[in-house]
C-alpha cells in the first residue's frame, strides 16, 4: 500500500528560549518491507538541517536555533510504499529453538537481547511472566502470538495513565497504558526467553471500517522479534495484530529511549507545551485518516538558564 503521511509537531514556550538543539527520528525507514519514496522536513523558525544514520540504521535529522524563539514547529511529509508482508505459518517446529540459539551465537543480536533502560527484568515483570506461563515449552512463534494477544485481553488502553518516561512497572501494576508501555513490556518478556526483540516507532493506518479506540492516534509503537527462517517479525501488542501493510516503520531501537521522534535541549526558564497532529492517508484512494491538533501534555521547567531536555511525548 502507498501512504502519504503528514506530521506536525509544535512546541510552544511560555517565554522565549534560545539555543535549541534538536534531533529528529521522523523519517520512515527504507528496508525490505517498505520504501520511503520521499521525505520533506520544514522548520519554523528555519534552521540548517543535518543528517546522519544512527547505530540502528535510523535516519536522524538535527538542527539548532540559536536566536530567541517562543515557538518551534516541525512539519514532515512522507510518501511510503509498504509491501504485503510474508504469510506467517501458524507455528514453527519446536526444533526452531535450537536453530535460534545457534543463530544468536553467531550473529550480532546482543543489543536486542540484553536488558535496556525500559525493557529490563523487574519483580512485576517476573510475576507477569509467570502469569503468562511464557516458557520455551511451546514453539517460539506460538509463544510470541500468545504474548502479543495477552495485552489486549488483560491491559486497558488508557492514555494519560503513564508518562513518557514511566518505568514498565507502572503499566504492569495498573494494567493499563499506551502502545509505548505495551511494546516496552513485551520486549522485556520476549528477551527473557532469549529471543532478540526490538522497539519500532512508526505510524498505523486505520481503515475506516475497523476504527478502534486508538483511531485518533496514528503515531504508534510495536515490536519486532527475530525468528529462525522468518527473520524480524512485527507484533503489535496494543492491537493484537501481526504487523502488516498498515504499519509504517520510522525508527528501531532497544526500547523507546533510542527512538523518540524528537529529542532536544534549549536554554530558558519556561513552560513548554507540545502539540502533535498526524494524518496518514492512503495515497491511491484519498482515504483520510487524521487527528485534530491536540495538546499532548504540559511539562514544567523550573531551572533558570540551564539546558533542560524535552522529549516529545508521542503517547498513544
Amino acid at each position, binding site marked *: 500500500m502507498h501512504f502519504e503521511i503528514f506530521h506536525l509537531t509544535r512546541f510552544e514556550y511560555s517565554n522565549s528560549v534560545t539555543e535549541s538543539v534538536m534531533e529528529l527520528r521522523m523519517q520512515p525507514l527504507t528496508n525490505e518491507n517498505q520504501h520511503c519514496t520521499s521525505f520533506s522536513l520544514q522548520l519554523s523558525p528555519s534552521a540548517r538541517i543535518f543528517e*546522519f544514520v544512527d547505530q540502528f540504521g535510523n535516519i536522524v535529522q538535527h538542527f539548532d536555533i540559536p536566536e530567541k524563539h517562543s515557538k518551534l514547529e516541525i512539519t514532515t511529509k512522507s510518501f511510503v510504499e509498504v509491501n504485503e508482508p510474508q504469510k506467517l505459518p501458524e507455528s514453527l517446529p519446536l526444533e526452531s529453538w535450537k536453530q535460534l540459539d545457534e543463530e544468536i551465537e553467531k550473529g550480532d543480536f546482543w543489543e536486542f537481547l540484553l536488558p535496556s533502560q525500559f525493557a529490563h527484568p523487574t519483580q512485576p515483570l517476573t510475576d507477569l511472566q509467570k502469569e503468562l506461563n511464557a516458557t520455551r515449552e511451546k514453539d517460539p512463534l506460538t509463544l510470541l502470538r500468545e504474548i502479543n494477544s495477552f495485552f489486549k485481553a488483560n491491559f486497558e488502553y488508557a492514555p494519560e495513565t503513564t508518562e513518557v518516561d514511566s518505568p514498565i512497572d507502572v503499566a504492569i501494576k495498573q494494567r493499563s497504558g499506551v502502545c509505548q508501555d505495551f511494546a516496552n513490556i513485551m520486549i522485556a518478556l520476549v528477551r527473557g526467553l532469549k529471543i532478540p526483540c526490538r522497539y519500532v516507532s512508526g505510524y498505523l493506518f486505520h481503515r475506516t471500517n475497523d476504527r478502534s479506540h486508538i483511531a485518533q492516534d496514528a503515531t504508534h509503537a510495536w515490536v519486532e522479534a527475530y525468528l529462525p527462517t522468518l527473520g524480524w517479525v512485527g507484533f503489535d501488542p496494543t492491537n493484537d495484530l501481526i504487523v502488516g501493510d498498515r504499519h509504517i516503520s520510522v525508527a528501531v531501537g532497544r526500547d523507546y529511549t533510542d527512538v523518540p521522534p524528537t529529542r532536544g535541549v534549549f536554554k530558558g526558564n519556561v513552560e513548554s507545551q507540545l502539540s502533535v497532529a498526524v494524518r496518514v492517508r492512503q495515497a491511491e484512494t484519498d482515504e483520510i485518516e487524521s487527528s485534530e491538533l491536540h495538546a499532548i501534555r504540559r511539562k514544567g521547567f523550573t531551572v533558570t538558564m540551564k539546558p533542560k531536555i524535552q522529549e516529545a511525548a508521542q503517547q498513544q
Partner: protein
Amino acid sequence: MEKDYGDITSVIYDEMYGKSDEPLAHYRAVSETISNMPHEELLQRQQAADLSFLHQGITFTVYGREEGTEKIFPYDLIPRIITGDEWNTIERGLKQRITALNHFLHDIYHEGKILNDGIVPHELVFTCKYYRREMRGVDVPKGIYISVVGTDLVRISDGSFAVLEDNLRVPSGVSYMLANRQVMKRVFPRLFGNYGVRPIENYGQQLLTTLRALAPREDREPNIVLLTPGVFNSAYFEHTFLARQMGIELVEGRDLLVHDNVVYMRTTAGLRRVDVIYRRLDDDFIDPLAFRPDSQLGVPGLFNAYRSGNVALANAIGTGIADDKALYAYVPKIIKYYLDEEPILQNIQTYLLDDDSNRKYVLENLDKLVVKAVGESGGYGMLIGPHSTREEQAKFKDLINENPRNYIAQPTLALSTAPCLIENEITSRHVDLRPYILYGDEISIVAGGLTRVALKKGSLVVNSSQGGGSKDTWVL
C-alpha cells in the same frame, strides 16, 4: 642510609635496596647525601618543599568527606629512581599496550572482529557501562582513540613492572609530576644536577603537539581548548595548570556552543571556532543531547559535531570500555590478537567473577584477595582482603553475588616499597608508578611519571583520593 625501616618482608622488592641490604648502585649517591645530611636540615628541606606546594596552590579534592575538601597533595622528599634499562622496557611495553588497545577500540566500534573471533566475549563489551553504542561506525580523527593515557604500573616481588590499570578516560596527576620536579630542583639542586636525570619539562609542549595532530582542518592553526567540569572537580587545579602550560583556553561547557554542527567558543569578540577539545569531562556528561540528559556541564550537540568530523576530542568518546577492570584480564590476548606479539609488561592475575568456579574461590578467600568494582577508579569501591574486617568482607560477598559482572578479584600484591621521610623518620612505604603516554602522530612517553606513595604504614592504596602522597620520579 641503612636498610632498617621496619616491616619489610623478603617477598617485597625495595626501590632503593632491591632485595639486598646495600643500596643499589643507581641509588647510592642519593642514599649517601641523605645519610650525611643532618636530620634538622632534612626536615628544613621537607618544610621548604611543603611550603612551596602550598604557595603554588597545588591541591586536590577528596570526595565523600565533610570537612574542607581541598587538600595539599603530600610530597615526599626522597626521589624514586628508575634506571635507563628499566625505563626502556617500560616504554616499549607501554607503546605495545597502547597500540593494541587503540586497535581494540577501533575494532569494537567498527567490525568487531575480536568479538566475532571469540577472543573477547561480546557480552563483556555490551554490558560495560562505558561502552558507547553511539560510537559504532563513527570514525575518529586519525583513528586515534586514546591520546592521553596514564597507565598504573607496580613493581612486583621479582623486580619487574606489571600493569595494574589502564587509565584511558581522563587520567589525572600529570601536574603533580611536573610540580614535584620543580620542587625537587629547588630543594636538592646539586644532587639533582649531578644525577643525569632525563627531563620531563616538555610534557606541556608534547601534549599540545599531540592535540594539534588531531585537528580536523590542516589549512590553519587549530583552536585548541581544555574543557573542564569546573572548580568543583577534584582535578581543577590540574586543568588550569595544563591550560596555562599549553597557552590554550580553559573552558566550561557553558563557554561553548554548537551551531550548524560546528563548535564555537564564546569570546568577548564574538564566536570563535573550536577545532580540538582536550576534555577532562566524562563521556556521560559531555553532551546532554546524546548522553545524560540531566548534565549541565556539557555542550548540547557536541557529539553530532564530533561525529561529522568538525571537531576532535581527546580522548575519543567510549574509551572507558578498554579500561573496564574485567576487560583488563583480556589485554594480553588483545595484544597477541592485533600485534601477534607477547606482552612486554605483565598483567596481574585477575579473577572474573561471573565464572562460577572463580567466584567460589574468591568468596572463600576474600580475606586474602583484593576486590575491585570494574567501573570505579581512584581507589573507590575496593576491598583489600588482608586489611579488611569481617563486616566489610560480608558486604562485598553480597555485592558480588548481586552483580558478579561488576567485580573482579586479584591477589594482594607485594607492591614495591621505597624509603620515605614520614613524621621525621625515614621509613618504607608502598609505591606505584603512573607514566603519562601521549598518542598523536606517534606515541611518546615523557621519561618519568607520578610515583604515588601509600602514606599509611603497610597500606597498599596509593590513590590521592585515599590519602596517598607522591615523589619525584627520576629516569636516568
